[in-house]
Structure formats: C-alpha cells, structure tokens
C-alpha cells in the first residue's frame, strides 16, 4: 500500500519579509491551538506580533465543485462535513434553499423538529467551543466538563438521527425520520442537567481572574470593522452589531418564537465569550418553548423522487453557530446545481484576525483566535 506520493506538491510559501529582529513563526498546520489545520505565519518582534498571515487550503476539499455533480438530495450530506459542528444547520440552509426553489411547503411538525435540532446543535457547538477555548488559555479541566453536556446532546442526536456528528437528517421537504419516542423526555433531562451545571462554568472559567485578564481588551473589534470585514455571528454581536439572521430574516418559525438576540458592546475577546455563553441560555429558552408542543402530523412533505429546481438563482441564509451561512444555488433546471456557493461565516471571521491582533502577544493571539471559534473545513470548504 505504501508508495511515495507523486500528486502532492510542497506548499512552502515564503511570505512575511523578516526585518531586523523579526522572528517568523509558523503556527499550524499541525498545532494544538488552531483546532485543525489553519496555518498562520506570524511575524514576531520579541513576543509582540507584527503581522499574522493566514494560509488556508490545508483542508480544502472542493465541496463546491463536488456539489455540481450531486443531485439535490445527495449534496446535502456533504454540507454536514463542511461545518461539522453545526451540521444540522448547514443541512437546514441547503434544504431551505432547495425548498424555496421548488416551493415545497414544510409540514409544521418538521419545522419544529428542525428548529429543535438547530438549537441543540448550537448548544453542542458552543459547549465544545467553550471547552476548547478554556484549553487554549491553558485550563484543561473545563474541556472535560463541557464534553459531559455535549455528549448528552450527542446521544439525543444519535437516538433520533443515527449519527453523532455528521447526521444527514434534514432533507429537502422535511426530515429524514420521525423523532425518536423518548426524544422529548431526554431533551427535558438534558435541560435539567444543563441548568444544574451552568453555574460551574462561571465558577471555573468566567469568573476566574486569570481568565478575565487574559480576555479583557484583547483583540478588540470595532463595530464598523466588524461590518466591513463581514464578520457575523457571535464575533460581530460581541461588537454590538445586530446580525442574527434568526431575527432579521426569520426562516422557519423563528418569528413565532420569542428569544433575545444577544448583544455585547465591548468588542473584545471577553465580550465574544460572553455572547456565546449567553446564547446557550437563549437556545435553551427556545427549546423549552417548543419541546412540549410539537404538533402531530407527518415529518416530511410529499416530494417527487427526483428533485428538479427551476432555472434561476436561489439564496438562503441561516444562522449557524458561527454566524451567517449563505447558500447560493444557480440552477439550470437540471437535477444537479449548476453552481453552488457557500458563503461560510468562518471565512469572513478569519479575515479580521490580522487586523485585530496586531501588537498583541502570542498568548493574545491564541486567546483571540479561540473566541473567533473557527472551524477550518468551514473556511476552506
């Protein structure tokens, strides 16, 4: 099986020009703090960062190209590999786009299920982010405590969708199967567990003086910058930019549910941290509203075996755990998309890294990058 590979070509890019006393350090592709394969070329002066230059593409799987040859039923499963931490929401976005195109009416039960799944996914994603965040700043224990809750969600997902991470559950026209009988009960248990544990998060990380010193006034983003760099999601909301798609362009029944868009104004890492932590509570609130009144009915609209989108362009936006995901489908009327473009939140959020971290320390870089909550396959696609 082993043979020297011929198809790879070395990817060394001599980029940052090292002046006198400048230390050029590669962080990544393999680095505990980059959560995957982000490659940053950092120009240091002593410990102070003069320039950060992201090099992407270490996990570029050409998903957009693939989708051009997959049918509208098939291409959805690839999107759950894109931002695997909010797989449901990615699937959701694509499903919505297809449904818009074909004017499929979604049964109410399916809508509720979708929203429930989205919010559970959001919580799970934020849990993982929280653990990884704490690990980046050097506290190891919170990581394991966060996974306790996350695993509970994973079990619920697994019971209903049959997979823990990349569940291809939300399909055009509804969801793939009906809810599992003890779904409701287990979600309620989870909410109980969550509520009994949430204060520990403050005790262990949020209130901790060291943590606050690490986060406050680090990687500050002004509101204008956030908009101009196209930041979305918690990153922009941490700077006081109201950009929650669920509020601005409500897609399922988000307009019927009551929840607050979390806004912080400081714009530093700590603000972004607080936004996510508070968002988890909002998601719990949404779930509590929905969990007890899931309407009966069928979970999938009647659709033709082969889906065909009419000729035209369709754009749908959903709020993933990281920000605004835009799905832009150009159809020629065939069974496969002619061109599909995923406007992924991480891509824009990453682009502001250099701007916000200049003049900081390496430790700052790690902390601030943690609060961007990057998922690299979502950036490279």
């Amino acid at each position: 099986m082993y043979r020297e590979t011929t198809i790879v070509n070395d990817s060394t890019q001599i980029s940052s020009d090292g002046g006198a006393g400048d230390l050029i350090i590669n962080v990544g592709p393999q680095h505990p703090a980059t959560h995957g394969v982000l490659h940053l070329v950092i120009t240091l002066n002593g410990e102070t960062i003069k320039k950060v230059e992201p090099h992407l593409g270490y996990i570029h799987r050409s998903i957009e190209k693939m989708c051009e040859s997959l049918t509208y039923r098939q291409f959805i499963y690839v999107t759950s590999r894109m931002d695997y931490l909010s797989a449901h929401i990615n699937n959701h976005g694509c499903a919505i786009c297809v449904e818009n195109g074909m004017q499929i009416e979604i049964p109410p039960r399916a809508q509720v299920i979708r929203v429930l799944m989205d919010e559970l996914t959001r919580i799970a994603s934020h849990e993982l982010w929280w653990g990884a965040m704490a690990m980046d700043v050097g506290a190891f224990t919170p990581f394991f405590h966060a996974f306790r809750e996350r695993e509970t969600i994973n079990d619920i997902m697994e019971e209903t969708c049959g997979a823990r991470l990349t569940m291809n559950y939300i399909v055009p026209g509804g969801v793939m199967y009906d809810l599992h009988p003890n779904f409701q009960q287990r979600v309620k248990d989870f909410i109980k567990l969550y509520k009994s544990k949430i204060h520990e998060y403050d005790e262990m990380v949020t209130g901790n003086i060291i943590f606050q010193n690490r986060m406050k006034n680090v990687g500050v983003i002004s509101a204008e910058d956030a908009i101009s760099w196209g930041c979305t999601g918690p990153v922009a909301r941490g700077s006081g930019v109201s950009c929650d798609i669920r509020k601005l362009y409500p897609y399922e029944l988000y307009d019927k549910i009551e929840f607050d868009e979390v806004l912080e104004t400081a714009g530093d890492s700590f603000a972004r941290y607080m936004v996510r932590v508070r968002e988890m509570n909002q998601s719990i609130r949404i779930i509590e509203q929905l969990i007890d009144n899931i309407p009966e009915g069928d979970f999938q609209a009647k659709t033709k075996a082969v889906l065909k989108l009419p000729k035209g362009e369709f754009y749908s936006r959903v709020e993933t755990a990281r920000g605004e995901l835009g799905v832009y489908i150009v159809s020629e009327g065939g069974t496969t998309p002619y061109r599909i473009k995923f406007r992924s939140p991480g891509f824009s959020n990453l682009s502001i890294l250099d701007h916000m971290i200049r003049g900081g320390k390496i430790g700052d870089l790690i902390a601030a990058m943690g609060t961007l909550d990057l998922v690299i396959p979502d950036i490279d696609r």
Partner: protein
Amino acid sequence: MNAEELKIKITELLPSAAFEEASEWLTINIEPKDWLPLAQQLRNDASLHFDYLFCLTCIDWKTHLTMVYHLTSTRYRHNIVIKSKLDRTNPEIETVSHIWRTADFHEREAYEMFGVNFLNHPDLRLLILPDGWEGKNPMRKDFEDAVNMIKL
C-alpha cells in the same frame, strides 16, 4: 427602501444599469468599468449605505463569467445584487477590497478558482490552492485534472 425606490435611486446613479427580477432581491447588471464608481456611491451614499458585502462570487457560464456581489445595508436592511459580465479569456474587474474589506479574501478566492483578475488588489496571491496552481482554475466548467479527479 424597497426595491422600487432602490431602482429609481440607482438609475439616477448609473443610467446604464439594467435590472432583472431573477431572485427575490433587486438584481442589477452593469458593465465592469462602471463597477468601481458605483460601488463607492453604493457604500457612501447616505440613503443607500450598503456597508455589508455578504457574498461575493463568480459563475462560469461556459461563454462568459459573471461576478455576483450581494450587498446589504445594516442601517436600512435592504439588499441588492450586482452582476457584471466578464470576458472569459482575460476576465478583469476593479477590486473593491478597500471599500468592503471582506472582499479581500473573497476576491483572492475568486481569483484562484476562476482566474478573475482583480485590478489594484493589494496582494492577489493564491489563498487556498497549493502553489503551482496558477493557470488552472478548478471551479471553471472545463477544468480537467486527470491525476486527482476521478469522475463518477
């Protein structure tokens, strides 16, 4: 502003603009050369204030390329779509990375995927693809890669 007012406003900004009703948003077709001045006005005009470029991409119709810009205004919450046809052999258009900073990365992506050449872009280098990919533009329809690409 709703679509109608936008239409009027933009017509007086750029008489040559052609409108189409393809998607749910107002879509404007322009010439590449008009793009930069129009972009500046769209961004800076107080009543339009399109300060958020939320999607920038390119489509390869086998005859020509089309740049697509999705713009929205965080103040008035109105969206428009700007389209511009590019010549397929040497596609060129002015960069807007200084107007909307997010365009920086997106344009680099469009550059390597479609070979669109953005004039006056600060550093138009490969962002995602490994070195040595210049010339081949994977997202083009006629892209062939015998080694890596196993057709189904």
